[in-house]
């Protein structure tokens, strides 16, 4: 809520009454202006659509007408060609093959293929690439018909066709033979040419003939008059450019609106997104598929795809920003779209929106002039009303302001000044017939009655405040005395409590210490007992160990003597080895003599000589085995002597161990004796400690009881203290309030 004085409120009300009609008029005017503008734009758009639609339809009809005318012309020529072919006896296939290099124009791949030679009345149509050399049949046909002419041969069962003879030329001025027409160059689309020709029908329309887009007529070539199989086809046609040359001129000359024009864009396949006919032919052939507007929207793609949804020249519209050559900013434009499927043309008749901007500007300027005038009138009315209102308001508010000042002084407690002000006001503002301070009269106005009441209130307040101030002084002094007494008592109790607590804690400490000591003594005693037990068991263990070690020493001796026996036996084996060596030697010698004898016996001795050799071999085996035994024995002897040494060392260690163990056992015995001596002394000390601990514990409990009493006393004193303090605080507050009044 705005804080406004009475004066301002009165003035504001007046001003508002004057301005409100003006504002309403302005708002109405502004609203009207907007609706007016929208209406104008809508009307203009309807006009634009009508204009563009009309243009698009005209262009579509033009194309349709040119297409129909050309088709009719080609059909006529085809019937001439048919007669000529029949005249030379038709085309047949010889059994001789010819190898072709077939190029697939959609993928660029080349494949080699063998096809039977195509003959025209006994002459091979050849494989002629040169334009300088005449190709049979095709060249004369082309000359007669005055159009391009091509022959195709079927490549496979599927029906792919290969151009084998043509008047169509490639870029490097050769005949475009070897170019294949593959069925369904793009998956999913049926080539209409194949659809018709393979069925045995003729076809007329736009098609890619030997690598060139033509408006062409196709007719199947049959293998025989019985028409069993299509072996190829003949095509006659005109290049597309020559077909739509006239159409192009007309399209370029059609204006749409002030600056609009008609454009043609390719819809499918290779020519998709290429400008076919542009404004004044400036951008023909340019690839504009990827053109985007400021928002990144691919507008051409959108338009071309939208146009292809139309059927038989129906019209769709599109609104977009477009920038022509020589322009710096794109302009909004509305186009009518349609699609001429026979030529794969997207027809685009567009008109720029700024062509009708002039009308809009005129409307806008009229409305804004009207608004300016209204504003001026409003300003003048405002000044006049505000001046008048201010004068009136002042006369109403002056006495009220004075009374407000007096009431404020009373609120501050300044009763003296309030009274003076009241008196001054009475002199100046009172009417002569009214006595000063007299009872308010029914005839007096509201202002006068208010002053009288305030005056009465001020005098009553003065007497009451004087009384309160006196009682306050008395109350404060009593409360202060009470608090002082209470605090003194509290401090006394507190010091008593502290002393008690201190004493209790000391006693507890003593008790705890003696208990701890008793426990420590008990621990020492326990440990001593344990030590004695352990030492005893250690000693008996050591005695057992001594026995075991003695046994070990004996066992070691036994092992040593056994090893010595093994060593002796091994030596014995050595002598056996010597004996075996001797046997091996004699066996070998025997076998040598046996061999010699057998040899001398000639044929008779053959068997014997085998035996002799066998004996020698056995002797060798014996010898080898003997060597192995010897080796093993040597190793064994080494191990045994190492073992003997180890055992000797071990038994020495064991003997040393026995002595050490004996010594330890003796030392342990001494320890045990000493520890056992200590135990009774520990028990005496422990009993004393326990008694002391018990006494200290009883004192401690008494102290705790005392301390608790003191704490309770302190608590009640604190409560009393708190009450006293609260009383003092209340009195002080009262005193402060009373002091505010200047009596």
């Amino acid at each position: 809520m705005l804080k406004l004085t009475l004066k301002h409120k009165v003035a504001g009300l007046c001003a508002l009454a004057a301005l409100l009609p003006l504002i309403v008029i302005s708002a109405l005017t502004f609203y009207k202006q907007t609706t007016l503008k929208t209406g104008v734009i809508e009307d203009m758009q309807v006009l634009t659509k009508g204009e563009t639609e009309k243009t698009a339809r005209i262009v579509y009809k033009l194309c349709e007408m040119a297409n129909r005318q050309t088709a009719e012309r080609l059909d006529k020529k085809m019937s001439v060609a048919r007669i000529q072919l029949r005249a030379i006896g038709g085309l047949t296939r010889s059994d001789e093959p010819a190898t072709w290099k077939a190029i697939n124009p959609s993928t660029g791949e080349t494949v080699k293929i063998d096809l039977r030679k195509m003959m025209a009345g006994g002459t091979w149509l050849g494989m002629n690439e040169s334009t300088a050399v005449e190709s049979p049949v095709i060249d004369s046909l082309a000359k007669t018909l005055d159009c391009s002419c091509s022959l195709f041969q079927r490549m496979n069962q599927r029906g792919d066709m290969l151009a084998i003879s043509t008047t169509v030329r490639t870029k490097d001025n050769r005949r475009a033979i070897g170019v294949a027409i593959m069925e369904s160059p793009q998956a999913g689309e049926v080539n209409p040419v194949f659809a018709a020709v393979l069925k045995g029908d003729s076809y007329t329309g736009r098609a890619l003939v030997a690598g060139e887009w033509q408006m062409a007529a196709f007719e199947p070539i049959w293998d025989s008059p019985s028409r069993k199989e299509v072996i190829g086809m003949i095509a006659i046609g005109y290049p597309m450019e020559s077909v739509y040359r006239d159409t192009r001129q007309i399209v370029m000359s059609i204006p749409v609106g002030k600056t609009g024009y008609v454009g043609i864009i390719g819809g499918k396949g290779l020519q998709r997104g290429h400008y076919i006919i542009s404004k004044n032919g400036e951008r023909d052939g340019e690839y504009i598929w990827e053109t985007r507007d400021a928002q990144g929207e691919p507008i051409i793609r959108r338009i071309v795809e939208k146009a292809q949804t139309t059927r038989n020249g129906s019209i769709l519209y599109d609104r977009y920003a477009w920038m022509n050559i020589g322009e710096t900013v794109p302009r909004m434009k509305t186009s009518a779209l349609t699609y001429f499927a026979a030529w794969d043309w997207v027809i685009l008749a567009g008109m720029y929106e700024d062509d009708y901007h002039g009308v809009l500007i005129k409307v806008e300027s009229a409305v804004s002039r009207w608004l300016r005038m209204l504003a001026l009138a409003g300003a003048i009315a405002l000044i006049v009303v505000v001046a008048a209102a201010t004068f009136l308001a002042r006369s109403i508010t002056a006495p009220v302001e004075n009374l407000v000042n007096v009431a404020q002084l009373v609120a501050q407690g300044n009763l003296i000044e309030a009274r003076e002000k009241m008196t001054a006001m009475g002199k100046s503002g009172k009417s002569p017939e009214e006595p000063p301070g007299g009872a308010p009269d029914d005839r007096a106005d509201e202002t006068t009655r208010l002053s009288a009441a305030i005056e009465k209130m001020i005098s009553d307040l003065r007497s009451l405040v004087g009384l309160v101030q006196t009682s306050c002084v008395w109350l404060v002094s009593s409360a202060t005395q009470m608090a002082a007494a209470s605090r003194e008592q509290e401090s006394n109790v507190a010091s008593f409590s502290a002393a008690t607590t201190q004493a209790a804690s000391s006693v507890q400490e003593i008790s705890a210490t003696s208990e701890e000591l008793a426990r420590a003594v008990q621990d020492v005693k326990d440990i001593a007992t344990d030590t004695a037990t352990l030492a005893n068991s250690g000693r008996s263990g050591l005695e057992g160990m001594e026995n075991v070690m003695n046994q070990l020493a004996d066992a070691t001796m036994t092992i040593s003597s056994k090893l010595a026996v093994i060593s002796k036996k091994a030596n014995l084996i050595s002598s056996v080895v010597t004996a075996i060596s001797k046997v091996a030697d004699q066996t070998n010698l025997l076998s040598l003599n046996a061999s010699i004898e057998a040899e001398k016996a000639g044929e008779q001795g053959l068997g014997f000589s085998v035996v002799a050799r066998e004996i020698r071999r056995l002797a060798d085996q014996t010898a080898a085995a003997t060597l192995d035994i010897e080796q093993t024995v040597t190793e064994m002897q080494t191990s045994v002597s190492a073992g003997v040494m180890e055992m000797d060392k071990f038994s020495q260690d064991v003997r040393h161990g026995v002595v050490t163990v004996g010594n330890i056992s003796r030392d342990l015995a001494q320890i045990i004796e000493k520890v056992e001596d200590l135990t009774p002394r520990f028990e005496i000390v422990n009993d004393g400690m326990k008694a002391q601990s018990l006494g200290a514990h009883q004192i401690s409990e008494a102290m705790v009881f005392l301390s608790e009493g003191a704490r309770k006393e302190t608590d009640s004193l604190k409560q009393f203290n708190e009450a006293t303090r609260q009383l003092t605080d209340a009195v002080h507050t009262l005193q402060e309030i009373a002091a505010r009044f200047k009596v």
Partner: protein
Amino acid sequence: MKDAARSCWNTIGVAGDRSCTELRTYIHCNNCPVFSAGGRALLERNPTAGQIDEWTANLAMEKSTEKRSEKAAYIFRVGTEWLGIPADLFVEIVEMRPIRRIPHRHNNVLTGVMSIRGEIHLCFSMADLLGIDAGVVPAESKAVPRVCVVRKSSFVWGFPVAEMLGLHRFSESDIEQAPMSIAKAVPRFTSGVLTAGNRKIGLLDDELLFHALEKYIA
């Protein structure tokens, strides 16, 4: 290292990891010249003291031209019986080997055929022919069973024996009459009894024996 090379048969040969490439040629170390040479290294040692003396003394003696007895027989054992067959029938004595049964021609005596030096020969059981219990073997025996290969009138036969004693020479006068105590069937085929050491040997009559045997193959 020298030891390792010397006893290659223990490291890379049949007693070792068999990695020696020569094993492909010789199959077993026993056939390998390296092994033979290794064994003969034993003979490259000095003879023991007295050995040369012993040989010198032996050689100085005249060669004993002991009169040879005119007859000889190979002595072998079947079961508990020691038997002899004239030595001139013997082709050879070979190690024990598997006997293959002949289908449909199998009986206790004619046990089958066996391969001897790549040739297949008929095989019979001497124990069953003579009716001796072949299963009874003296407990202390360390005997090695062998196969005797004999030729009688162009027939070669093999028969397993429990142990070979060897060749025993004797003269006609050494042959005693067979006592009745020798096992029941044996006397039918024995021509007499010989004494070799403390053994009594039944000398078999080869004519009777092989005549009886031929009946089994008829």
